[in-house]
């Protein structure tokens, strides 16, 4: 229908009038850039979190009393181990320590391999402690005593998104720091070798102990997905409003730019171009502008997020409480590019149709006079 020469001509004309399209190109690139940056960050974080959950135990059990997290004892573990399909269950110490001087929370996790007077800390924790000159030893304050612990090593950088605010301690020390009794656990981890039985086991545990919440791996992954869907979604709603105003601007700008080209279009029509040819011509030009801006915007976002690590924007997603030093894993899939395309290029083209048509039908005898 549309010949190669016609497309060639449309592109040549576009190059000649590049100043007219520069405005929409630049703004549109910026819009796509912001949109893809946000989506890239959120999908990268989601991916890291889900991966880390896949390496964790199948079911996590937590007890609740009066709406607050409660502790559990060995009796729970004994009963859970007897459920069909469970290969192992063990209690862990896991809680939060309030670091009053900086007004932040550290996440404390018990780890058997550690000695009673040493700890492993995340990078964020290290930075916070160093600011108050805790370089080698940190003093935990509890209601009974002051517990000095040697700062042993820093958690590996790759597990950053999880371990940034974490302190690993020997379980006995962790109990002392969190003021727990011997034999008390805050969480029970359950191992279920057969993946298909996980949700069934989780259900049995809540039936056995109605005061517990048993979260299967699937539940936790979908929680994370949902949280980031939510964050991304609020952004997208605000963003759509901004985009609509841009598109209205674009529509006016295009009518203006084409208005000054009336003569040119009149000449085209007088040498035999039909109205639909002119619309096609304008459509090809705008499609070129929109797709090239789309590709450039996505590429810029990729560089900004995965090479420069998203300065400023990261705080929206990671929170400022302990400033994060996370690096993002590049995750870009076809689905997301399709989403960005749908959300940006299609409305762009939709807003161009009417101005193109209005120009194409303009009275040509007026214009060539």
């Amino acid at each position, binding site marked *: 229908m549309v010949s190669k020469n016609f497309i060639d001509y449309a592109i040549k004309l576009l190059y000649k009038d590049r100043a007219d399209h520069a405005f929409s190109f630049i703004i549109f690139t910026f819009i796509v850039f912001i949109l893809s940056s946000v*989506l890239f960050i959120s999908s990268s974080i989601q991916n890291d979190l889900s991966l880390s959950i896949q390496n964790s135990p199948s079911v996590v059990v937590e007890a609740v009393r009066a709406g607050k997290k409660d502790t559990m004892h060995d009796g729970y573990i004994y009963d859970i181990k007897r459920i069909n399909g469970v290969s192992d269950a063990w209690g862990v110490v896991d809680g939060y320590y309030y670091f009053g001087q900086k007004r932040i929370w550290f996440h404390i996790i018990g780890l058997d391999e550690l000695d009673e007077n040493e700890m492993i800390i995340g990078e964020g924790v290290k930075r916070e402690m160093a600011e108050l000159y805790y370089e080698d030893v940190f003093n935990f304050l509890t209601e009974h005593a002051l517990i000095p612990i040697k700062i042993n090593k820093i958690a590996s950088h790759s597990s950053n998104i999880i371990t940034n605010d974490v302190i690993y301690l020997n379980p006995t020390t962790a109990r002392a720091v969190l003021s727990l009794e011997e034999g008390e656990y805050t969480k029970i981890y359950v191992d279920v070798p057969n993946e298909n039985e996980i949700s069934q086991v989780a259900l049995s545990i809540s039936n056995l102990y109605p005061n517990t919440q048993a979260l299967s791996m*699937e*539940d936790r*992954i*979908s929680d994370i*997905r*949902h949280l980031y*869907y*939510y964050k*991304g*979604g*609020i952004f*997208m*709603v605000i963003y*759509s409003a901004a985009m609509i105003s841009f598109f209205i601007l674009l529509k006016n700008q295009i009518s203006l730019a084409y208005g000054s080209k009336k003569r040119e279009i009149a000449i085209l029509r007088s040498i035999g171009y039909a*109205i*639909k040819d002119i*619309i096609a011509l304008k*459509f090809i030009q705008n499609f070129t502008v929109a797709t090239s801006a789309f590709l450039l915007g996505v590429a810029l976002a990729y560089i900004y997020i995965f090479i420069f690590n998203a300065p400023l924007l990261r705080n929206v997603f990671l929170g400022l409480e302990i400033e994060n030093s996370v690096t993002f894993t590049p995750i870009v899939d076809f*689905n997301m590019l*399709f*989403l960005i395309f*749908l*959300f940006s290029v*299609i*409305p762009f*083209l*939709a807003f161009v*149709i*009417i101005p*193109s*048509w209005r120009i*194409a*039908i303009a009275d040509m005898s007026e214009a060539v006079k």
Partner: protein
Amino acid sequence: MSVFLSNDVIAFLFAELIVIVLMAISQFYIVRILRYWDFNATTNLQYTLEKHNYLVNTILFFTIFCKIILFVFFALSLNKLSSVVPGAMCSAGVIGSNEYGNILFLLKLLLIFGLGLWLVVNYLDLKAINFPFLKRKYIIFSILFCAILGEFVLEILFFTNIPLSVPVFCCSVVFQAPKLPFGYTQAMLAMFFYVIFASIAVLNFLKQSMASFALNLLFLFIAYYAITYFFGLYVYEQPNHKCPYCMLMGEYYYIGYPIWGSLFLGIFYGITPFLVELITGYDYTHLLRLSSFWLLINVAICSFYVAKYYFTIGVLL
């Protein structure tokens, strides 16, 4: 909480809304064209209407193209949502999670068929010099537009009613074997599938558009059940996994897209010639060749999985 804030849903509804606004603009002009159009008149009004006709054509061309892209996107986002909706392992769970899902999906398919038919009529209309089918095609479009408005309402109802706290049924529950209609067995379904395909191929060769039309409708129905309850088992290589959606996922190399895509293209080209003849009176039987071609691809893919399973394992499921 609802899935309303997920990125895919927002982007989908936003694009859908823009398409609908554009269609509404053209619908406004369509009503005027339908009322005052007279090709032989030389009035100012007729001249304006002809200009508007260009706009309407451009918009409809663009929006139908968008609707087809949006349909693919809808299928993709349902797959993505299945990781958020508890209990859903593929789109079957998401679609079945409330009463609107299945109606919506059916309506979407019918609309794709309808819009495709409209494109053919439009093409014929533009090819002729004096717009002979203009009124008929715009009446068809007005009906389609009403259906699209209904579809949008259904979409909103569907997305707002997806439960996120109570688990939904997954495909292994939804597609249990006793649900087969008319007491069909799997062997009968497979047999019907091949017999009907063979008759369609013969009828297509003989260019019998009306008989082809009827058999194609029957084939759509039979093929859906045959693929879900018989051929799907060989795709999943499991005797109990019956689901039309899981094959769309990466674990099965996205084979669902070619399978369902070729089936729908085949059916579409099979039923269009008769309808076009009905609307315009033109003979359009050359499309029947395309129908045979796409259905053949569909049958080939389905049979390939059965053959592959038989040759590697040595038994049939």
